């Protein structure tokens, strides 16, 4: 990396992230504690701004407890605040395979991003190095522990969905965009994996139903791979979610787009499902 003057501010923030120096606020979650900087997080999120400035308890104690949220997702959010990206990889070896045999390289897919991914890894390496010397409270240390505690059954698709809902909840639009992008890439390759369903569940329960982008991706992926609907566990899963309706409307739209003259199918939800499956199969 060239030593550009404009990198200075980036490097500084990265440094703050690594060491937690000058930290003036804490985020706790699931027993973990992140030492953060108001100056970094508050301007990016109305929620944190109000928590830090408002007349409430958080302002006086200097701690905000995000008890309802997933610690891993929170760790990702904090990473994003400092590094403008997030990763759940420590050292070179993933602590938990993102899913199946896929390596973290497919995470971002494209070449350009691969370069970014590489840089991120060096970053993580430095964090790992610094653990030895830094204080126990150092940020990277906490991050490492959080990552190590990544529950086995949670796929990275689910993680993106969780980060997305967190970004929505705490009003961090750019993070929302980023996680959506990464979710979409991941969904294209992971649709047949079993944790796809897990992610679908997360998508349909963690955000308000008017928040469309991520739901649209799910509908699109299922529409592109209708055979998914043949699986019983998928059928069971879908039944109780709004996904059912979204899929129906998705198929309806696809139908009109494909054939000009078509008798409008009047059907119940179950019929619709079988009809769709039958129609889709020849393709």
């Amino acid at each position: 990396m060239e030593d550009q003057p404009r990198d200075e501010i980036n490097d500084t923030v990265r440094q703050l992230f690594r060491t937690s120096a000058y930290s003036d606020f804490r985020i706790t979650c699931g027993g973990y504690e992140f030492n953060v900087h108001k100056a970094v997080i508050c301007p990016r999120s109305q929620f944190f701004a109000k928590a830090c400035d408002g007349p409430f308890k958080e302002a006086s104690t200097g701690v905000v407890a995000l008890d309802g949220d997933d610690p891993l997702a929170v760790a990702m959010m904090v990473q994003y605040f400092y590094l403008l990206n997030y990763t759940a990889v420590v050292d070179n070896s993933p602590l938990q395979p993102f899913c199946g045999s896929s390596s973290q390289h497919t995470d971002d897919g494209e070449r350009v991003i691969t370069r970014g991914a590489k840089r991120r890894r060096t970053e993580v390496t430095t964090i790992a190095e610094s653990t030895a010397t830094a204080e126990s409270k150092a940020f990277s240390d906490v991050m490492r522990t959080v990552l190590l505690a990544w529950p086995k059954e949670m796929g990275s698709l689910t993680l993106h969905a969780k980060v997305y809902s967190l970004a929505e909840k705490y009003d961090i639009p750019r993070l929302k965009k980023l996680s959506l992008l990464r979710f979409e890439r991941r969904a294209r390759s992971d649709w047949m994996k079993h944790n796809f369903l897990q992610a679908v569940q997360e998508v349909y329960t963690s955000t308000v139903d008017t928040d469309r982008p991520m739901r649209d991706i799910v509908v699109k992926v299922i529409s592109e791979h209708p055979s998914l609907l043949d699986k019983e566990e998928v059928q069971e899963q879908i039944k109780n979610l709004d996904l059912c309706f979204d899929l129906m409307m998705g198929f309806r739209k696809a139908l009109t787009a494909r054939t000009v003259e078509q008798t409008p199918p009047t059907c119940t939800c179950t019929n619709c499902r079988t009809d769709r499956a039958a129609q889709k199969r020849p393709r």
Partner: protein
Amino acid sequence: MNSRAGKIRPVRRPIANKDADEFEPCWGQLRDALTDIHLQNAGKLSFEMLYRASYKIVLRKKGGLLYERVKTFEEEWFRDHIMPRITELITKNLVTVALIQAPGTSAHERREMGEKFLRGVMGAWNDHNMSMNMIADILMYLDRTYTAETKMPSIFAATIGLFRDNILRNTLGAAAEDLNHDFVMFDILNAVMLDMIDLEREGDIIDRHLLRKVVSMLEDLYETDDELESQKLYLTVFEPRYLHASRLFYRKECEKLLRDADASTWLRHAQRRLAEERDRCGTTVSYLTTEKITRVVEQELVMAKLEEFLAMEGSGLRTMIDNNRVEDLSILYTLISSVAGGTNTGANPGMATLKSTLQSRVMDLGLEIEQTLKDTDFSVVAGAAAEGDEAAEGGDKAKTPTLSAAAQQTAAAIKWVDDVLKLKDKFDNLWVSCFNKDLVLQSAVTKSFSDFINLFHRSSEYVSLFIDDNLKRGIKGKTEAEVDAVLDKAIVLLRYLTDRDMFERYYQKHLARRLLHGKSESQDVEKEMISRMKQEMGNHFTTKFEGMFKDMELSRDLSHNYRSHINNLGEVDAAQTELGINVLTTNNWPPEVMGRGASGEGTRADCNYPPAIKRLQDSFFKFYLKDRSGRVLTWVGSAGSADIKCVFPKVPGKDTGPLSKERRYELNISTYGMVVLMLFNDLAEGESLDFGEIQTRTNIPAPDLVRTLASISIAPKARVLLKEPATKTVKPADRFSFNAQFYSRNIRIKAPTISNISKVEGDDERKETEKKNDQTRAHVVDAAIVRIMKQRKQLSHTQLTSEVITQLANRFKPDITMIKKRIEDLLAREYLERVEGDSSMYRYLA
């Protein structure tokens, strides 16, 4: 929420049930928190927890319900806890004082009572505002999703509006039951605030900070929960009343000033009030009102009685101008020009008044100058200045204590020019220091100057005289910059003249005199003057003047060449006469000089030159025609001069004194004078000639001869001829003889030239000049009409007239009747014809 079990199981529980279960506990949490917030116990509440609770509710699609619950809660809280506090504030006394303005309460009492009321309202507002802000923070997610999607007012707008609906718009209840009008709290609030502001205007000290806070409350509240920018309560309710009350206040104040004070006080007061009101908008009221309140003060305090103040005797606009009250005038200008309409006199009646007053003042002062001129006796007043004039006048009556009429006129002209320039300086000075170099005012003042200058019928002549005087002697010993200033002044005056052709005529005359008699102080300055005029009026204006200069230069060369030509011939003649000649091009020089004046004689009959001179003329003519065959030279005796060496023999019988010796003098006289004197060379001693004889022998026109004889027989300095009888005037019956007794202390004697081109015209002469000028104008108008018609082929009478006026504007302002006459003349001469059927149209005939 999310199961972390190893195997993903479909969620079987209906979600709706779970939602319903979750709403109540979450709402319970929030409700308790709202109470705490109102009781100002927020410090122990966890923001995250409350945020999460509201987030959860929204996530479970219960946003609408939450919204309603919060609103209801707030309304109840408001009714139960805040209203009573406010109601207590409204005492019967307050209502009476604020709304009925019952007499008998002192300013102090009123202030105390008002401030107490305002503080009470502000206390309630502050509490409410703070709580609502906190609640809005907690419900941030609700606002971002539910209210944004349903387009409902934000939770903050909905709850903050309670203050408006329940307090400001609340009727007064028991305290106001006596009043037969439905007043609301807002009326009291307004009345109290306006009363405070009036107190401050009267000089009291009030709690500005408190008022400012009330105003910002009104700025934070809107007519409806939609919170449209233009619907702020401040703008819709308070501001109109504030402006209205201010209007009444200033109207009253203005009337009082008109009764008790003078214009100067009024100006300063208005200026101070304007500054105060602007300042008040910054400290007490709102910036939003700055422009509007400024307009109110301008309308009521400045414009309403402007005319009356400006017309005030002893302090009004007239006095300000006359006494150069720079400060007053600049305040006045600043006030007036900032009023709506700005410096546009059409849109701003104040500017129009200022403009017209300035104009009439210029006019009056200008006419005053003329009046003083008439009233001044220059023969006495200009006595001191006359010393210089003697030289200029040639000293024909130099020894007489009173000045000649001509000298008086010169003095008058210079005084007039000086006065006009002084007046101009005065207004220029005001224009720069008071009127911000306002272009409209400048052109208005310029127009007035032009008007009064042109009303004065001698202005053209006087301006030319002024330049003449300066070029002859005024610039002697002056630095370049000073000379420049004089020229500038001349040009400034020139700009005002409309009858420029008149000026041209006079200038030509004066210039001719300066050139021929070598009176000009500096060729360079003369040329500079011409080039400036050229810049100002264009080429055609100065061609004649330039031609005159060219003639002079050519003549100098010519004389020089001729002299060397004679020398080369080697003809040495004892009685050789040196010839200095000026060959003048007829058109460039004034007709009077050229001896073809229109005074009737018109003849250019040569006088009989003495043989020696005749020979010289022939010789020169021959020389002249060598290079320029076909030209005609006419000798103008009246314009030339001659140096004669005279010998006065020893007077017999005188043994002592100067007369006992032979005397030689060099006499400088006019050409005619020389011709006359030469006659006496041939006379025997003691013989004399009478006027008639001299005239027949010389053939000099009678008026010229009178002047010539007067110059050598009357003025004692150069009395080389004796006149019989020895009166002061030359009569046809007089006899003249050689004055053998002539004695002078100087060797060189200059006989006074009494020229017919007198410097200042008498009334008759002036009429003559005008008549001549009118004739010239007639030709110019003819030419213009023909030029226009040739181009346009067909035009209506009015169009043609206005075209002619525009075309000639640079030279003079043609008389309408004259144009009409010229058109008729051209019709008669068949340059134009009337168009059949439309008598107002003319057509050009090729």
